[in-house]
């Protein structure tokens, strides 16, 4: 029962690990370069999920800009358990920008490869390169 709780209670982290492994597998094992890039993107997206998961809180926590009206005037309007940690979200905004630009550069290189070899399969390109060498 404990293991079930462990798996269900932290399901977002499990999803992050599974997604990351899918991406990792695609990057290592796939023969097609486009699929490798998609794998890279899944890998990076998994990291976003991980960071966002670390920010979440149970027990009615909300976003920090909304002030709680239930509190009496003069009391501290916001205490740490009442709001989600905004920093991981902000970090991920920056990381998304980085990831999009990596994706863009990778796609540009993919186009260069396709124009040169007219294929994106790794084994076919290797065969062409071997023929060039001989």
């Amino acid at each position, binding site marked *: 029962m404990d293991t079930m709780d462990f798996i269900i209670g932290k399901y977002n982290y499990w999803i992050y690990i599974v997604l990351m492994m899918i991406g990792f597998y695609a990057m290592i094992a796939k023969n097609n370069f486009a699929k490798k890039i998609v794998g*890279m993107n899944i*890998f990076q997206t998994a*990291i976003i999920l991980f*960071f966002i998961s670390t920010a979440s809180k149970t027990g009615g926590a909300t976003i920090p800009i909304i002030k709680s009206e239930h509190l009496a005037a003069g009391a501290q309007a916001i205490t740490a358990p009442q709001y989600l940690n905004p920093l*991981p979200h902000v970090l991920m905004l920056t990381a998304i920008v980085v990831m999009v630009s990596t994706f863009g550069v990778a796609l540009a*290189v993919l186009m260069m490869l396709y124009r040169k070899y007219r294929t994106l399969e790794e084994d076919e*390109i290797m065969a062409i*390169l071997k023929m060039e060498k001989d």
Partner: protein
Amino acid sequence: MKEQAPALIIAIPLLISFINIPVGLLRRSLCYPLTIIATFSCLYLSFIIADTVINSGNISYRLGGWEPPWGIEYAIDHLNAYMLIIVSLVSFVVSVYSKKSIEKELAREKIIYFYTIYLLLVAGLLGILATGDLFNLFVFLEIASLAGYALVAIGDKRAPLATFNYIIMGTIGACFYLLGVGYLYIVTGSLNIADLTKLLPPLYHSRVVLVAFAFFIVGVAIKIALFPLHTWLPDAYTHAPSTVSAFVAATMTKVGAYAMIRIMFTVFEPSFSLETLPTTEILGWVASAAMMFGCIMALAQNDLKRMLAYILVAEVGYIVMGVSVGNREGFTGSVLHILNDSFMMVSLFLITGAIMYKEGHRNINNLFSLHKKMPITMGCFIIAAISMVGVPPTAGFFSKWYLILGAIDAQKWFFVAFLLLSSLMVAVAFFRIIQSTFFKPSENHNAHEEPLRDEVPFSMLLPIVVITVSLLIIGFLSGQIIDSLIQHTVPKGF
């Protein structure tokens, strides 16, 4: 100006890299002087920063006036100042060299964008060195890497494939680094390096911290191409344009090594990296394998640039080995070797670029009587080569001396043996080239005619000569460099 130097040293190349595009579209010839201005001001600022650090202690620059650990801090101590000088000096020298080489190797319309991306790369590398914030370091790491991918991709016809592998490997490295930052953030709630140093010690046995450390080391090891994660490096650096190879080979791996040293000895305490986990033990053996593998592969190459790339893999091994033995001599050797190796690498790659410029190829077996055609270039080549082997009084000797002292002090006799053996193999690799250029008779039937003297243009020759002569100067001044900068970088407890 003096107070703002840590921010300006990043802002100037970043801004000028964007100004380059509109200016370049109006007048292409202005890009080169603009780049020289940017890199020269970086060099000037890096000396100001080093002067401040030596005379009045570490700098803590608050971006936007926010106090650390909430705001982003640029923290500069002796190690940062030392690395900033290396990177900005190399970037200045290479940018002087770039003009003729790039005009020959690239299409005309690409020159503007070359300089733009080149300055972005400089800004990224200087950013990694100046920042005192782990996430900021990730962002600069990615700026530098993305600029690196783009610069490698404009190389010869095999470059796109090499770049693709580089992107895949580099992204895995950066993502592992980011995961490490995330894990540390979960347990400490801080991203500031100085703050983490204080917060982490009570948590050293937390499994999260151990995982974070593992992610950091593997991520950075990919970025510095530590054997067996080096597979992207030989291809990428062989097929990039000569100028790019020279700059990237001299700086990227060294800045990565800086990041590794920072994480191992500043974010985590030396006692953690040396004792809690067997990291240094593993790194030491991996580094020894890198030294041997890099040199053996270098012996097997016929392409001069590819041979240098494999020697670079071995040199990364030297740096990591010196860090891993965990004593004062080894660490001093490593930090000194970062300087020496980046100068030797830039010198050798620039000479390879010069050979490419004149001969149009770089096959080791076909470089007949180059010493008569290009006496100054080949003279520099010999100095850089003997420095790489480690012959006194060149710079390479002193850092290898400290590395060997460190290994002896730690009683790691295998490391000493590997170091000497790989130096020997480097010697064989370079004597092969010297033999084929100086002594091998030309197969050409007109061999009786003396080849005409035909040096590369002055703007390419000057950087080569300056950087090679500085190898000798560094050799003579290495005692002073250690006294004024390096000895302060050795972490406490060594």
